[in-house]
């Protein structure tokens, strides 16, 4: 180890990974439905894409990416729910890894709900 910068580079690399173990109430929780219906329609790549991106971008202390069982809307799987403290839950449906990363960029980082992927947009489209 020759400098603090060198140490901090290792720290930055590891922070995202170790940060997965952080626990605090202010975290944004991103939950991916991973029941049989979710997995069958491709929830796993969505979950891993989100989790990897959050860790790579060193966001794991702020955003926790977890999984849950069947949400009850099997026809809309893969479903990703975003829960921000003090805000209403946003449900994204028929997710793909690409769409999920768009949600990460626009909603989780940019603060802008991606309306076109939400449950209400999907339901309105059916009417």
């Amino acid at each position, binding site marked *: *180890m020759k400098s603090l910068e060198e140490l901090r580079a290792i*720290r930055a690399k590891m922070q995202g990974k170790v940060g997965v173990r952080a626990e605090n109430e202010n975290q944004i929780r991103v939950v991916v439905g991973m*029941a049989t219906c979710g997995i069958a329609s491709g929830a796993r790549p969505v979950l891993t894409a989100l989790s990897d991106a959050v860790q790579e971008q060193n966001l794991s202390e702020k955003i926790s990416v977890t999984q849950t069982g069947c949400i009850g809307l099997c026809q809309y799987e893969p479903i990703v729910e975003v829960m921000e403290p003090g805000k209403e839950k946003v449900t994204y449906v028929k997710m793909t890894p690409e769409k999920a990363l768009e949600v990460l960029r626009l909603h989780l980082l940019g603060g802008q709900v991606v309306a076109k992927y939400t449950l209400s947009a999907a339901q309105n489209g059916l009417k």
Partner: protein
Amino acid sequence: MYRSHVLVCGGTGCTSSGSQRIIEKLEKEIAANGLSEEVGVVKTGCFGLCALGPIMIVYPEGTFYSMVREDDIPEIVSEHLLKGRVVRRLLYDETTKTEKIIPLNETDFYKKQHRVALRNCGVIDPENIEEYIGTGGYEALGIVLTEKKPQDVIQILLDSGLRGRGGAGFPTGLKWKFAAQNEADQKYVCCNADEGDPGAFMDRSILEGDPHAVLEAMAIAGYAIGASQGYIYVRAEYPIAVKRLEIAISQAREYGLLGENIFDSGFSFDIELRLGAGAFVCGEETALMTSIEGNRGEPRPRPPYPALKGLFRKPTILNNVETYANIPQIIVNGPEWFASMGTEKSKGTKVFALGGKINNTGLVEIPMGTTLREIVEEIGGGVPNGKKFKAAQTGGPSGGCIPAEHFDVPIDYDNLIAIGSMMGSGGLIVMDEDTCMVDIAKFFLEFTVDESCGKCTPCRIGTRRMLEILDKITKGQATLEDLDKLEELCFHLKENSLCALGQTAPNPVLSTLRYFRDEYIAHIVDRRCPAGVCKDLVQYRIDPDKCRGCTLCARTCPADAIIGKVREIHMINPEKCVKCGACMEKCRFGAIYKE
């Protein structure tokens, strides 16, 4: 990159209840479910709740599973790790009281705790230096070497108010200052990891859970006092701690955090391990250094103090494991941060190993000034089986008992000394109403008699004479003159012993005499043991009004001491009775009693 981390406790407690096998099974199941790329298993140090081991936490959810068995693993993997459904039956009871699962740090055991020294225990993989760096590790060393002068470091420690966590509570900054002032061609930094108090395992858990924190602090100490060599004296009975220290030292060398020219600052420092053979006296600083030198571990008179003439007659500082574990964070967060915790003269936090008659056996870290009541009733979950709290023992064989009347005294160095005990290294043994205080004093004296090194007469012979008197008391053969003699011996040992082992050996006797003198008197004058522990003073009897003549007791008695026929009142023959209590346990009518 893993989306989920499964942390399994690899401390000594959970390892002995099978956590290694659980890790192996877990890895197998994860692979069988095709999750090897997504879920990582991490073996950590102690989580603290040893009573509920083996313990497992799944992140990012923070799900806390306790008493996990190998058979539970397939369910955890296929339900939780694959499908995200928490296995509720394996959760820690307290977190499932309501529909919503309570987060761990809001449970009684964790919510009053404040983890500084144990910050990384149960959070990181102690065998991976990058995880330590990832939580801010070695930042303090980097800052110190590139931005601070040695005297700045000492000033930070002085300002923080950190006192030695080994028990005596000497200000750490002052110790470093003395060693820094003494000129010499070589100086040494030593770490006392010879934890020997019965029931104490704080240092072991830190070494097992966060070894790099100790290495980092020792390097900082080396820079502050001008030493280039460190030694960790650790007991060989701590094989997991020794192994993790060895791994940590070699990783730190590999990353250039130990060795030549660290952080390109011109400062070089290295650390070696020395294994102790488990002699209690080697926890005493001069004996410890004598042992590192390769001689028989015996203390020598002070002064000269180690800061002037220590290891190999060179200026040396010796600090305890927990003391070191606090230092990197004091540097990073500043002395004001540390001094904001605790009481006026005792800053920061203290780790205690809770043991004895308490529900949550384990490791806790609390801010100084927390009361005994909070530790025992809230964090510890109270005394089991509805028994009454009688006293807590702190400081091991050098400490004393704190009775229920001092339940609300804020715990810090000075308060504990004022009530006749001492902080000690942090063992805290809870005793309930079934404990005989004379018997407890005798237990600790037996320990010091065994562990006295024999170099000085007051300790070698004095402890033995004291034990003989205690033995007479518990057998009902003592007189009140014996009690006077016992107190006189206590005084002589305190005044005349060479090292702290002998000087503090009378403390368990003195403190029990101070608070439970009536129990001593009952043993001597009434030939009675109020708690019913001392076998020679206890008689088992059968209440003729309650006995139904079922013969169960007579059949249970291993000594054939109970006479009586079916449907007739039974009697115990005191000549034959060995006082094992088996009959009393078996009787369904509560007809057998002790007196």
